[in-house]
């Protein structure tokens, strides 16, 4: 309900801006709605299309590649002008991408890349997971300004690429600071409740006073950890600095009340840069680079977090 | 027969201990080639334990087994099979939804290029079964044939796998007369082929008909081995019971006809039992007679609501009642001891005590548990009056022998103080002693004014306790015998008469 009214409202407000866009029809094959971020990506993509006056055909694959391939074939049959694809897995796309190429429909990958020859898609818009981790590490290094700091780390799901890359990036970020040391690192499965459970064990195993900062691979785990810190009688944000990644609304709410310190945005707006590139290509044939990296924007307590929260909370996170 | 002098299988000093009990105490058993050797004893005497020790299903605690002079010690039934000892149990141990051929060859299917060769399996099966006098389609599922045929297939499988010793554990328990004949002809053929056959049964007539020698067990010990040509039935019963059974069937007190209790009008179910009328009075025992498959069990189940009737009405003391499920029947103070004790009677893992109070508790409702003292009092009282033999009321009922299980089931219903008790084959698979006790109990209950309906395949038994006999054939009531008419001869005549009429 909330979603729908918001969409209608934004569509009405933004309608005049769409005059310049040609009557484009674009197919969007989304993975599903397994996380709040994914839901926000869907919302923002629809908004971006509305803004440009593009007719967006949306297909939810419910986590199944065969559904995505079916959706792509149906887009090709309908003769859409371009296809946005958020691939659920990396392999097995060659054949259907070949079909799109033969039909001369450009395919833009969102959020994830695929293992297929580069000439089969126009561009991939993704964030740089390693870079996100590095921004977090750099921030903490600046924040501590040389003071000693024992860090505990809440990892994502063991073996997942965000967990591996965000860990790697953070370690790069703090590698040149001998005052920063990770003392405990355990998986919180990217969930709020595991984040809380694991933080509880960190606090008991190390003693709350001996932990200076928390780095969480996503905001949800950080939100859970904040509760654990509070229940242990400590002040999150002051006694323990908290930096995490994603920039979901709830972490901004926590930052607004000083309970978290920094978050790095994984923007749900992957469609914006993709559509910009597409429009440029259609207008004058500018071939976009094969990889468009989204901005990993750092938010700290200096930003108006309450305002960001208000802005983000209805995106479907 | 030179082999006759040397035993095929000789067991000496076999002992087996269970926690708190000696199941077998230095038992000796010798089998010669080409003999049928009956193994007799009351339930709990140790017959099954002995067989399990020989086949390796149990590990024996002492004793030696020699097979054709070689000491053997099988540790599993599979191993004993490979050595040459095959076993066929009362409940056929085959897979009813596989075909006859698959059952016969299970685990050793003939293969062709690594794949099962079905055609070869079927021709082989047909050839083998012909030797047993069976001409059936090997490609049909086993379940489409009668228990007797299944039994023969099981025997064929055991003989094919083993071929020296064949143990038959109550093979005739669920067979009717003709089927027994079929089985006996197979046994005689195998005997001629030189197999040593162990035959366990409760039917003494059959023992004398087919066996050469008999070994009698009592309380885990051998009390004697007899050449049956030189022994009488009384001798054997004497050995088994250790006391002279006064008279297997006593003279019964004349029937007093009481008030009508249950009236069934046009009661039946399509495809199961044709509609019938039946009135049962207090203080009478109505016998249900008929051949296997004539509808005895179906009638009993219909009246108890196990399979609900789809036509007719039931009146209890003049009032119309519903009998849609057993719960309602129990509510009207009915009881049913089913034919298949194991699957529809006992709750195996519950204790004897819990099994005895189960129906009473079910009728009382979930939230009114029987007081512990009352439970103990009830259970102990019935164990005593029915002479149920057990180590403890806390032991799971499945460890009791068949006869004692049946008595515990009777206790379950008697504890509910029923007005009407249905007994389906109350003496099947039960030793001679318990048999007589149950017959006497039926008589006692009737004298106290209870109404009973008893279905049985044993005509003599029916004659002994029934005040009225209903004869069934092809799921239909064909005759009713009362008072002086009741005799085995008349029952057989009633069944036969109907057959003749049909032929004519």
């Amino acid at each position: 309900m909330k979603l729908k009214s918001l969409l209608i409202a934004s569509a009405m407000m933004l309608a005049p801006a769409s005059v310049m866009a040609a009557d484009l029809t674009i197919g969007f094959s989304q993975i599903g709605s397994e996380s709040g971020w994914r839901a926000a990506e869907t919302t923002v993509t629809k908004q971006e299309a509305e803004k440009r006056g593009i007719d967006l055909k949306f297909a939810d694959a419910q986590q199944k590649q065969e559904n995505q391939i079916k959706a792509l074939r149906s887009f090709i049959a309908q003769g859409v002008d371009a296809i946005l694809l958020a691939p659920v897995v990396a392999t097995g796309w060659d054949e259907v991408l070949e079909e799109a190429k033969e039909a001369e429909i450009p395919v833009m990958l969102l959020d994830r890349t695929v293992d297929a020859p580069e000439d089969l898609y126009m561009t991939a818009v993704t964030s740089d997971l390693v870079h996100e981790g590095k921004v977090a590490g750099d921030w903490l290094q600046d924040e501590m300004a040389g003071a000693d700091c024992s860090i505990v780390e809440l990892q994502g799901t063991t073996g997942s690429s965000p967990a591996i890359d965000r860990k790697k990036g953070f370690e790069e970020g703090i590698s040149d600071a001998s005052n920063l040391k990770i003392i405990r690192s355990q998986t919180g499965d990217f969930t709020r409740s595991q984040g809380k459970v694991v933080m509880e064990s960190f606090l008991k195993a190390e003693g709350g006073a001996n932990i200076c900062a928390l780095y969480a691979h996503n905001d949800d785990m950080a939100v859970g950890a904040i509760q654990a810190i509070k229940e242990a009688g400590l002040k999150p944000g002051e006694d323990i600095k908290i930096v995490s990644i994603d920039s979901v609304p709830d972490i901004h709410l926590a930052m607004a009340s000083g309970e978290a310190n920094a978050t790095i945005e994984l923007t749900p707006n992957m469609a914006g840069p993709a559509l910009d590139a597409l429009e440029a290509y259609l207008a004058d044939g500018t071939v976009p680079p094969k990889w468009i990296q989204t901005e990993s924007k750092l938010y700290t307590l200096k930003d108006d977090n309450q305002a960001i929260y208000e802005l983000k909370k209805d995106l479907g996170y | 027969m030179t082999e006759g002098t040397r035993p095929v299988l000789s067991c000496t000093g076999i002992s087996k201990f269970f926690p708190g009990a000696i199941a077998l105490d230095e038992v000796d058993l010798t089998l010669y080639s080409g003999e049928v050797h009956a193994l007799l004893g009351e339930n709990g005497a140790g017959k099954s334990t002995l067989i399990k020790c020989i086949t390796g299903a149990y590990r024996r605690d002492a004793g030696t087994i020699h097979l054709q002079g070689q000491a053997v010690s099988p540790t599993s039934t599979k191993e004993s099979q490979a050595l040459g000892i095959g076993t066929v149990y009362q409940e056929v141990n085959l897979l009813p939804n596989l075909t006859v051929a698959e059952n016969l060859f299970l685990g050793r299917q003939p293969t062709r290029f690594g794949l099962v060769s079905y055609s070869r399996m079927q021709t082989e099966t047909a050839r083998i079964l012909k030797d047993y006098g069976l001409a059936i389609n090997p490609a049909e599922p086993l379940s489409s044939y009668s228990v007797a045929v299944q039994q023969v297939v099981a025997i064929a499988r055991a003989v094919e796998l083993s071929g020296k010793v064949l143990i038959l554990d109550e093979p005739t328990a669920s067979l009717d007369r003709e089927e027994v004949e079929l089985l006996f002809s197979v046994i005689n053929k195998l005997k001629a082929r030189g197999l040593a056959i162990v035959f366990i049964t409760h039917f003494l007539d059959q023992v004398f008909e087919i066996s050469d020698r008999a070994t009698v067990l009592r309380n885990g010990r051998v009390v004697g081995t007899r050449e049956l040509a030189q022994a009488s039935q009384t001798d054997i019963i004497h050995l088994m019971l250790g006391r002279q059974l006064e008279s297997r069937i006593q003279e019964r007190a004349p029937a007093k006809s009481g008030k009508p209790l249950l009236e069934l009008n046009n009661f039946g179910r399509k495809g199961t039992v044709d509609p019938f009328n039946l009135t049962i009075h207090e203080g009478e025992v109505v016998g249900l007679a008929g051949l296997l498959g004539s509808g005895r069990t179906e009638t009993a189940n219909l009246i108890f609501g196990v399979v609900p009737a789809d036509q007719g009405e039931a009146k209890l003391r003049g009032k119309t009642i519903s009998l849609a499920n057993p719960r309602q029947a129990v509510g009207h103070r009915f009881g049913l001891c089913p034919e298949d004790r194991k699957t529809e009677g006992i709750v195996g893992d519950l204790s004897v005590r819990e099994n005895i109070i189960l129906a009473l508790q079910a009728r009382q409702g979930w939230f009114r548990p029987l007081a512990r003292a009352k439970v103990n009092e009830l259970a102990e009282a019935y164990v005593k009056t029915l002479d149920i033999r057990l180590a403890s009321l806390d032991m799971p009922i499945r460890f009791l022998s068949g006869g004692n299980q049946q008595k515990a089931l009777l206790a379950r219903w008697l504890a509910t103080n029923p007005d009407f008790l249905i007994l389906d084959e109350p003496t099947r698979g039960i030793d001679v002693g318990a048999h007589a006790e149950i017959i006497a109990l039926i008589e006692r209950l009737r004298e106290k004014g209870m109404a009973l309906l008893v279905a049985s395949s044993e005509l003599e038994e029916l004659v002994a306790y029934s005040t009225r006999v209903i004869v069934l054939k092809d799921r239909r009531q064909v005759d009713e015998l009362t008072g002086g008419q009741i005799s085995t001869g008349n029952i057989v005549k009633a069944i036969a008469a109907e057959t003749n009429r049909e032929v004519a």
Partner: protein
Amino acid sequence: MVHGFQATLRRIAPQLIILAVVLLLNFLVFPDFFKIEFQNDRLFGNLVDVFNRGAPTALLCIGMTLVIATKGIDLSVGAVMAIAGATAADLVVSGYGWGTALIGAISVGLMCGLWNGVLVAFLRIQPIVATLVLMVAGRGIAQLITEGTILTFLNEGLIHLGAGTVLGIPTPILIWIGLGAIVTLGVRRTALGMLVEAIGINEASSRVAGINSRVLLVSVYLVSGFCAAIAGVIVAADIKGADANNAGLWLELDAILAVVIGGNSLLGGRFSITASLIGALIIQSVNSVILLSGLPPEFNLVIKALIIIAILVIQSPTVKHALYILRASAESEALEPARAAQLTPPKETAQ
């Protein structure tokens, strides 16, 4: 009564020993494990965490034990948790009080239980298939309620159920111990326990004995749904938000494992809720060892698997039998001279 207590103790002895061993393992990797402090108005310590974090599995295994006793299984409990949590969160976010939210969540849980029970008892669908339906669909239903987001709430009353304390003891601990005690007494002080066991062992026999097996079957699934709903509310309250994607994820497997570690047969029949609850504590203690050990998370599942395998192997009938033989032979050796002295004279007199 004394007799009953001794019987219970004998039944749960293996589980208690295993729990003691795993707790000792915790102590070895973290010497302060047993230290409990009173700080910030609540009991604070690793042992408290084991009891607190074990709450969802403990709650689930109460219902699961009864379902398994009837030869069934309830795979849907994890999804039901998600639905119940989402329902409670949605109600408080819409402005209702925590009481209404709790009642709403429980009603939804009971409805799920009823659905499972009807499929199993009346339509005679195999429990594993019947409950699979809700396991798969349930999470989708929960996502519909939360619209795919983590539905955050600030209702103090509801939060108290998951993160609050009563007299310093975390509320979830009181809830699972309380509910466990109520259900255990409920089935053992009435005839329910025995009747549930009877239908689990032999439903046909039970039916002939006049037991209303269908209604009883539906009832155990209702209890399971009820327990799952409470667990779902606690999990949501703990993080002040209903996470439809992750709440109770795979927890049905932990609940089944707890029941198995509790020595209950998956083939139905005899059951002990107390033993299952200890099973749940054992699982949580294993999780605690992993967290306190400080090993990299790549080892988590390996460690858990090794400990669980060890527990199950110790409980296997074969090993139990071997232990029994060992003990019996040790005893008989000790008895040998005495027995010989006893046995010889009667033998002579017999001859």
